[in-house]
Structure formats: C-alpha cells, structure tokens
C-alpha cells in the first residue's frame, strides 16, 4: 500500500508543494485524490529533503490544501500502447473521448522517451511526394524529417497540413502513412476539420488523435505531445509503420511551459520563456527520424503560430534551431489570394539534398531548385525597387526578373487545395518559368541539363 500524504503546503497555478514526504523521487508520477474521489496526476519536479514540488498534469481546479490526498507512485508517467490505439481519439491527457472502450495495453511506455543514440540513427533520405510544388520542388520533405510550418493566426496552415496528410506518399510504395495527431489548445472547429478530413479520405482508421482544445486545461498541453510521440514511436519502431506526426499548435505548448516556469518563480529567459525551453523542445522534436535496421519511421510536422508574425520570437526561433528546416507562411501572399501562401525565401528543408537527384526525383532537381530560388529572390528585390523608383528606372533584365517573380507566385506557388502535382509536373513548371530568363542567367544549372530540359521555344535574346 502506498503511503498517502495530506500535507499539501501550497498550490500555485500548476505547482503544488507537499511537505513531510519521505522517499519521493525526482520525476516520479504523483496521484492526487480529491475530496470527491476524483484522481488528478502530476510529477515531481524537485525534491528537497522532505519537501516535494509537484507539477500538475491536469487542472488544479478543485484541489485544496486540506483534503487532497497525495500518493507517490514510484514510476514515471506512462502510456499504455497497443495497435488498438489506431482509429481512436483521446483527450490531451490520454483519456478516450470517442466513446470507445479503454485500451487494453500490450505494454506501457514512459512518455518522456529516451534519447536516440546518434550512432543508431539512419539518415532520412527517401523523398516524400506531397503534391505541393513549393515543398516537393524547393523544400523537399523526406521520410523521418521534422519540418514545421511557421504560421500566423488566420493563415491556412491546417488546410496545408491536411493536404499533406492526404497526399503524402513515397513513390513506388503502396503503403500509406499513419497519422498521429496532437492538438494543443486549438479550437473545436480546427480539431473537427482534421477529424472530418481524415474520415473523408478513409485515413481515420490509420490515425490516432490526442486532442486538447482551447478550453481544456492548459497544463495538460505539456503532456499531449509526449503522448503523441510515445504512440508514434510504438507504431513506427515496434509495428513497422511510417508515421506522420502533426502537432498543432506548438505555441500553446510553449505558453504552458512558460506558465509552469513562472509558477516556480524561475529566472526567466528571453521574453519570459524558461532558459531550458530549447532543451525541452528538443526532447519533442528530436523524437523523429529513422533507426538503423527498423522498417518504420517518424516524420514530424509541427505547426506553430508566430506571435505578431515575428520569426525572432523565441518559439519559432528555438524551433528553427532544432527542426530540420521550416516552412513559412506569408500573410501578404494570403491576402493576394494565393494558396498555399508559402513565404518561399526563408523556407528551408535541410534534408532535401539527400532526398533529391537521380533515382530519387530527377538529375536536374538541385540545379532547378537553386536557380528558381536565386531568380525569385532577385525578382522580389526588383519588385521592391520598382515600388520606389517606378518600372522605368529598371534595366531590361530587371524587368524580366520582376515578371518572373509574379509568374512564379501565380504558377509555381499557387495551386489547388486538392491539386496533387507529381514531382515531374513541378519540375516542368519550374523549367517553363526559367525559360522566361535569358539563357546566360542560368548559372546554377549545368549546361547538360539546360540542353535536356529547357523548353526550346525561341526566346529572343535580351539586348540592352
């Protein structure tokens, strides 16, 4: 029988202090029984002689100093896993909310996970075709990558994530992705959008959802992504599945983290977020990838909304320092009515170089990608200059670049929410756009590929 304590000395937000405790261990799971018999959970954040600081996983509402009974369980928080998780919906703390039966676990896994040995990783290099040109052509996603969407309030990040979940495939393979979805503090409508979309495509049976809505307890959001990833690791590395993890919105997760830190009165780091937020986020994002000798994989697509669209804000900043690239959305393109409104220039896939090229996509891919980037960057510059000086002050070549930028947005970036382009279609659009430029400008593509792929319509040479 576990010892029970009624000596709660303090409750401040998500933090509870219990005194007179003996034998408490760091990080162990704590159960708090309320007067009415309801059970809440938490974990030991610090133990100092007989005083244990406990971080609650669930709301503090209804807890009181005198009647709450605290038990230290001698183990860390775990998730019971089995294949029965597939097709089910849980709340942010892992309780079923779809009316289905409780899961009979095959085994229980600690939700914080263990660091993957870098020696045991297998480098992700299999091209995932998402059917979206900006991703496939310019910021290629590979199986096992962690690639977040940096968005802003009101931008269509959910539609894009759903489109990716719908369309993502590895060429030449029949197997589809299983989706593990984690929602932190999003609205009912947003969550419902994903559920409906997955149901429509029949993907729901291959999906597991953990959903913490905007009006659910904030503090549960700290647990939600860890449940998601524990589930994903089980499916990927013990059940050989290719798992796509979508986590939205990581900004709400970080806010919850800040709340715990503030309640503990820790010295705050930048903009009030704890100094250890980088490390904390890495224990989420690094749980993606491939393992040597294992068939499955975890591809992560976290979504975050940048407060005030500020990319130097600690949440996107620290995320970008950990993830393998990022996809930015642009409010400006969204206003122009362009979907998907990718802010292409700061987008990056760090793993693209090993996922593209002969045998994976096509031999000319790298060159096309670099040339499109360079040309679009110049076009955007010129467009800004033209806004100040007027088009008349531009040289002829600059005018071509400006036109290129417009066409690039209209034809390459823009596509339908249900338009699933093959990589060949994407590269073809790329070459068509490049054919707007004088050939001498194509410095980033090898001559042999220009010969082979550049559409041979007689562009007049640009004389001055």
């Amino acid at each position, binding site marked *: 029988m576990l010892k029970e304590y009624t000596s709660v000395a303090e409750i401040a937000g998500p933090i509870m202090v219990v005194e007179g405790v003996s034998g408490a261990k760091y990080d162990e799971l704590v159960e708090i029984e309320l007067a009415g018999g309801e059970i809440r959970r938490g974990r030991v954040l610090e133990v100092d002689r007989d005083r244990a600081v406990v971080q609650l996983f669930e709301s503090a509402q209804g807890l009181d100093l005198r009647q709450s009974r605290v038990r230290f369980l001698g183990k860390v928080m775990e998730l019971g896993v089995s294949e029965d998780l597939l097709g089910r919906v849980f709340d942010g703390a892992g309780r079923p909310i779809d009316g289905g039966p409780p899961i009979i676990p095959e085994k229980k896994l600690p939700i914080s996970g263990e660091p*993957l040995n*870098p020696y045991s990783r297998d480098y992700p290099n299999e091209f995932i075709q998402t059917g979206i040109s900006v991703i496939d052509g310019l910021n290629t996603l590979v199986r096992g990558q962690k690639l977040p969407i940096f968005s802003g309030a009101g931008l269509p990040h959910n539609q894009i994530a759903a489109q990716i979940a719908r369309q993502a495939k590895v060429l030449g393979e029949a197997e589809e992705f299983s989706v593990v979805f984690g929602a932190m503090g999003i609205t009912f409508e947003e969550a419902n959008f994903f559920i409906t979309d997955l149901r429509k495509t029949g993907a729901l049976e291959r999906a597991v959802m953990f959903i913490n809505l905007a009006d659910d307890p904030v503090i549960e959001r700290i647990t939600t992504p860890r449940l998601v990833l524990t589930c994903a690791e089980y499916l990927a590395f013990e059940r050989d599945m290719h798992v796509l993890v979508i986590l939205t919105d990581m900004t709400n997760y970080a806010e919850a983290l800040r709340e715990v830190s503030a309640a503990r009165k820790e010295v705050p780091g930048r903009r009030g977020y704890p100094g250890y937020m980088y490390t904390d986020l890495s224990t989420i994002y690094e749980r993606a990838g491939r393992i040597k000798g294992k068939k499955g994989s975890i591809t992560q697509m976290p979504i975050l909304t940048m407060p005030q669209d500020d990319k130097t804000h*600690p949440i996107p900043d620290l995320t*970008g320092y*950990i993830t393998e690239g990022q996809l930015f959305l642009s409010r400006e393109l969204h206003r122009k009515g362009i979907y998907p409104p990718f802010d292409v220039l700061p987008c990056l896939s*760090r793993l693209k170089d090993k996922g593209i090229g002969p045998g994976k996509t096509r031999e000319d891919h790298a060159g096309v990608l670099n040339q499109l980037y360079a040309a679009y960057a110049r076009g955007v510059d010129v467009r800004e200059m033209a806004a100040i000086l007027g088009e008349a002050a531009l040289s002829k070549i600059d005018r071509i670049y400006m036109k290129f930028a417009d066409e690039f947005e209209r034809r390459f970036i823009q596509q339908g929410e249900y338009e699933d382009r093959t990589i060949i279609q994407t590269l073809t659009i790329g070459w068509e756009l490049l054919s707007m430029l004088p050939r*001498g400008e194509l410095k980033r593509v090898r001559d042999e590929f220009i010969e082979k792929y550049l559409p041979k319509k007689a562009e007049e040479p640009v004389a001055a």
Partner: protein
Amino acid sequence: MAIGRIVKVAGPLVVAEGLTDAKMYDVVRVGKERLVGEVIVLDGDLASIQVYEETAGLGPGDPVEGTGEPLSVELGPGLIGSIYDGIQRPLEAIEKRWGAYIRRGVEAAALNRAAKWRFTPTVKKGDTVGEGDIIGTVQETTLVVHKIMIPPGISGTLEEIRSGEFTVEETIALVRDAQGRRHEIKLMQRWPVRKARPYKEKLPSTEPLITGQRVIDTLFPIAKGGTACVPGPFGSGKTVIQHQLAKWADADIIVFVGCGERGNEMTDVLMEFPELEDPKTGEPLMKRTILIANTSNMPVAAREASVYTGITIAEYFRDMGYSVALMADSTSRWAEAMREISGRLEEMPGEEGYPAYLGSRIADFYARAGRVVCLGKPERQASLSAIGAVSPPGGDLSEPVTQNTLRLVKVFWGLDDKLAYRRHFPAINWLTSYSLYAEDLAPYFEQKVGPEWNELRREFMKLLQIEAELEEIVRLVGVEALSPSDRLKLEVARSIREDYLMQSAFDEIDTYTSLKKQLKMMQLIKAFYDWGTRALEQGVDIHQIIDLPVRERIAKAKFIPEGEFDAHFAEIFKELTESFERLMAQKGAYAERVH
C-alpha cells in the same frame, strides 16, 4: 571514499551531504545506478553535483560515492574514427550493448580494452626521457601514426621498453625517476578535461589552415592554430561550414563536437565521412576524425562537458606534433547548458541569465587553441585551431555568447540570413566579416601560391565595398543612371559574389577549391575587369561588355575539375582576350567610319 546521501534533486542538479573528502570537480557516482556526476560547488557539508545522465528516480537518501578523480578522458590508440558522447562514452559500444536508445547508468570504456596495437619503440633502454617525449609509434589508421608519449609529470631513465602487440592497458615501458620511483608507461594515458595540457611555448601563426572554401581562404583566412567563430541565425549555414572544414581543411586530425544540436547531423557525418576521400591521400576522411556527439536531447550536463572532452582529445594529438582542428557546433548550446546548471544552483544571474563566469569560461576554451612548440623530444611544432559556431537567439549578435566570443577569436565569419534566403552560400557576409590573420598570412600566400594573391584579395574586397556604396545610389536613382565605369564595377562585383564567393557544398567539384585554382579564378575575374575598363576607355558600350558570352564561362569555371583546370583556364583567357579585342576593333572601325 566516504559515501554521502542525496538531500535534493532538481533536474540535472543533485545536492548531497556527507561527501566529506570530495574535492571540486571530482567525479562521483550517484544513486543505485551509479550515474556519473561531477562536484561543481562545495558549501560546508553540502556538495552540489551536476549529473551527466537523466536523474529521474533519484531521491533524498540515495547514496553518492566519491571517486577522488576529476572528470577525465582516456587518450590512446583507438580514438580515431570513434564517436563519443559528452563524457567520452563510446556510442557504438553503447548501441551494441543496449540498443538504439541511450539508457541510464551505462558504462563502457572509451578505448577498446581488447584491441591489440602494434607498438614500435623509437627510443631504447637506458635513454633519459622526459614529459612529452615520444617513445614509439602505433599506426592507428592508414592516415594517422599515433605517437606514444611520456605523460606530463613523468621523467627519468628508461628501464625497459618493449615492442610488439599490446592492449592499451599493458605496460610498454618502465621509467625510473630521480626519486627512484618506477612508472609504468602504457599506450593509454588519462587527463582531466578541465585542465589544459601543457606545451613548451606558444608561437605566432604564420600558415593558413587551408579549407578549400573560397570565401574563407581568400577573404577571411584562418591560421593554423587560430580561432574563429561562425555566428548566424538558424538556417544560415553554420553547420555546413563546420562540416566543410571538417571535410576539407588541411589538418592532420579533426575533432568535431556536436554540442546540443541535431542527432541527424551527427549521423550525416558518420555516414558520409567514411565515403569521402581525403584530397591529399585518397583515404577515407573518417580515418583522421573523432566525433563527440551530445545532441540537444541528450543530458544537458554532459553537453556542458562535451566541449572540454573534445578539446582535451584535440590537445593530445597536438602534443604529438600534429595540426589539429576542432569544430564545436554549437558553443551557444554549451553556454546554455552552463546557464541551466547555474540557474539550478540559484547563482546570481548575469546578462540574460547566463552566469557571471560565462566570459571567462569561453576565454579559457579558446585559449587552449594555438600554435605551439610541444613538450618533449624530438622537438616539434604543432597547432590546434578552434572554430566555434554561435547560435544567437533571433540572430541578434548583441547577445552575451556572441559578444564574449568576439572579444577572443580572431576570425569572424558573420552569417547573414538574407544571403541564405537567396541561396547565396556560404552566407558569409563579406562586409561585416573579418580575419585578423590576413596580414600575418600574406607572406605565405605570396610565396606559396602566387605573388598576385594579396593584391587580388585587396582588389576584390575593395570592389565589394564599392558595390555596397553603389547599391545605395541604385536604390535611389536606378541602375541606368550610373556611369558606365560604375556599372562595370557593379558587374564585376556581382561576378565576384556569384561566380567566386558563392560555393556549393553539395556539388562534387565546387565543394573544394585548391588555392591554385582560387588564384586562377580570381585572375579570370580580374582580367575581365581590366579588359572592361580598357574597352570603356575606348568607348565600347557597357551593355556590350555585360552581354559578352564569355562571362558565362567565367561563371561556370568553378565546376571545372581541378585536374582539367589549367587547360580550360587558358582557353577561357584566350576567349576573353579575343572577345574584348573584337569589341574594341569594332569600336575602332566604327570610330574611323564616323570621322
């Protein structure tokens, strides 16, 4: 040793009482699983310990046992090609024993105890030996001869020396010192990581660390034994630059410390390096490389230690007489680990929560780099170059880690996300970056590469500066309003940027450029500039110069393989000359017709 008891656990920090004989920086074993920890504060009966492993499950009352030893690394044959965590546990052996995830409490010797190495003595019985003396060699890999040295602190007469095959723990020599004590010498020695290894004297730097990266070698060179930092926001190219240096720098030994960064980046090195050839020898690059990987999700205290583990191993190879280069990616994560521990210790926070000793720790680290005369016989010189990535939050260079680093290092490769966004890589900003070695290295380039080198470098720098000024004007009045000679300068500057400074790490040929090829490429651009200037003087229209087809050949010269470069270079040069001569002849004929 006395056994203490835990009184407090807060994350990676444990406080224990009753460790009566503990000293600062002693290694202790914490809890029943004997996790590795290090004493970092002693206060009365209480010792604060940073624990190098996950502390879940530890609690008050659990035992803590001192070892009486500071945190040390094992130095000897078997280091090369290894990948270690922050406290030198071999990740390969850990995988073999425990699988893909790193469990707690794992113990594995850094150097393989079973492997036998062939030791060939270079001294003989009866010789007098002192600290640092080389007494023999082990061919560790096809690229590296491991010199076996008398450890610091030992000297005397060689009573015995053996040759043959030995494990790292077997005795290969006996030294009797002046007090008559006998010291057993083994292939392996140990050294505490927080203490710099001794050398005889420091020397000024005179030779570049040749990296094959044009913007670095030409504009902002680093010396062998020098220090450099690479600050930049995420995605600006810090890691790729560090990897490029690890691949191509002409050092004998590379130590790469992945400190609090991505797991896949270490995997990348692990999978790629054995496939890549050393340009000098054709041998796999892994045969000169040592990796320390304490990625962001591995325990934070071991991240703090990883940088010291790396530099101690680097010093050890320096002591053999080698040129060693160490890359630390990223020093900011190391500083953050310090900050986290300091916060748990409830120390008075300095700027942005970093401890007040941040500056001195960074200084101590970079001070361990340098060109030196090594201890011991035979007399030898060696160098340890240190290159640290810095990851400033929000890319803001005014933050403490960047500022403290800039006070110490002599090369600043400032990465610019604007350049990265337009895929200008390496995104080293040519206007803000600097190398304080440029002057010292000028004679080397002049003598070893070509007398024009330094002049071309100055000219390139000047044109880039002029370009920045002209850009300002263009923004106000448009490019067509510039004089022809200014437009030529803009075109040449663009060519310098795009055709020369820009260099793809992922192109088989472009990834590395020898100094010789760098010089020739510079000469091509300069020749275009000189011819262009003359043509303008003769009245040739600037647009005709801009549109010359030969410019495309100049632009693509970087993709010409090293071996074929001379032939192509001559051809391009010829075409360049002929193109301009033709332009000027036409102009001359036209002028004659008009008159």
